[in-house]
């Protein structure tokens, strides 16, 4: 054990690491937002009686939940590339994360929706509310409370999984770290700092999320 730590080179490169971290956050949040939109459609399709939509959604969810994230990223980057569709590393990682997020969140949304007793709907209808009003004021707010924390977890997962972007040459936090350590040979230092930055990033997300939830949800379920 005569390894000597040299942190200076890491701190000199902090601006680059920070811009890598920004890309990480950027791709994860965008993948989350797009994932949510598609997940809503998938969840509706899965609960729909039209067989075709239901099957498409089921296949999507099954693949997304039961194959490695690495496989999705390779499919988006190399797989589509082989077919003549060339995505940038950023676009490939983004589309893979959107695909997976949508698959996971679709099940979260479906479960959340089905966990609200149908009697809540009857009760709001009995007060003269339209179907839209019943969903908007009664069903969705209760559903949002139940799926809020699973959604936060999914965002944290996206941040961590975006590090796989390193394998297709993306310049997010891991990719940047990889490049800088290979130039400086301070592998351990760079990856320790990168890990700390991931940790801080996810903690910030969790903190922000719990602040927001306190503002949004006053009542209890």
């Amino acid at each position, binding site marked *: 054990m005569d390894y000597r730590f040299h942190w200076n080179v890491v701190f000199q490169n902090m601006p680059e690491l920070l811009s890598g971290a920004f890309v990480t956050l950027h791709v994860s949040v965008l993948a989350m937002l797009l994932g949510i939109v598609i997940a809503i459609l998938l969840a509706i399709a899965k609960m729909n009686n039209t067989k075709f939509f239901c099957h498409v959604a089921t296949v999507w969810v099954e693949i997304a939940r039961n194959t490695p994230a690495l496989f999705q990223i390779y499919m988006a980057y190399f797989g589509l590339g082989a077919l003549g569709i060339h995505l940038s590393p950023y676009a490939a990682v983004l589309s893979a994360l959107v695909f997976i997020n949508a698959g996971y969140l679709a099940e979260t949304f479906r479960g959340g929706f089905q966990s609200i007793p149908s009697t809540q709907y009857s009760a709001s209808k009995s007060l003269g509310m339209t179907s839209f009003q019943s969903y908007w004021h009664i069903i969705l707010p209760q559903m949002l409370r139940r799926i809020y924390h699973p959604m936060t977890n999914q965002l944290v997962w996206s941040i961590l999984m975006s590090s796989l972007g390193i394998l297709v040459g993306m310049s997010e936090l891991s990719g940047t770290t990889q490049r800088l350590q290979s130039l400086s040979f301070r592998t351990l230092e760079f990856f320790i700092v990168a890990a700390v930055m991931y940790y801080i990033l996810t903690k910030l997300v969790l903190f922000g999320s719990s602040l927001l939830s306190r503002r949004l949800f006053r009542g*209890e379920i």
Partner: protein
Amino acid sequence: MISVQNVHKSFGDLEVLKGVSLDVNKGEVLSVIGGSGSGKSTLLYCINAIESINKGTILVDDVNVHAKVTNKDKLRQKLGMVFQQWNSFPHMTVLENAALAPRIVKKMSKEEAIEIARKELEHVGLGDKLDVYPTKMSGGQQQRLAIARALAMKPDYMLLDEVTSALDPELVGEVLDTLRLLAEEGMTMICVTHEMGFARDVSDRVAYFHQGVIAEIGEARQVITDPQNPLTQKFLSKVR
């Protein structure tokens, strides 16, 4: 007036209502008794158009409830409904529960809706619980909230579906007292109930449902204390 004429209702192969006819006049309290599966709750759901019917007609103030042209959301404003499982909205305070429908359905101003909600909540004895969340309250209190929430819409009729069945015995009294109060004030009510004492003392008439038909209907005290139909006699001897 609510007029039910030869109503049939099936769930799949199971025919739950097999030709039910009855009238409820303004200001009248009708209690509906009967065993489970006799169709008494289904009738309320059909009157409120939460369930469709297969045959027959239901008129509320001469409006055909199940006609395609009828605006059912509008019609339900006249028909307050309270359920066995009170169904309070858990993400809103007691006051918000009662003020929501007046505000978004009747398009009242926020102040107006809150004023009406507050009045109805005081009416059922929940004046000190306005800012509490319903999950913090007892079943009896939540059921009274459900009654106040329905009353805040100023309905002409109240449909009550076994509103005390899911309550702990010591909480039944407070809810029945609230219903007594409503009856004294002249509210028109159809109460599906297992409380024979309540049916006898508070309602004007009692209908006994047996396997989807009305086996006996008549003046409340007579049906409960001196039933004519052997089926009613058998039922009442069991529940007493």
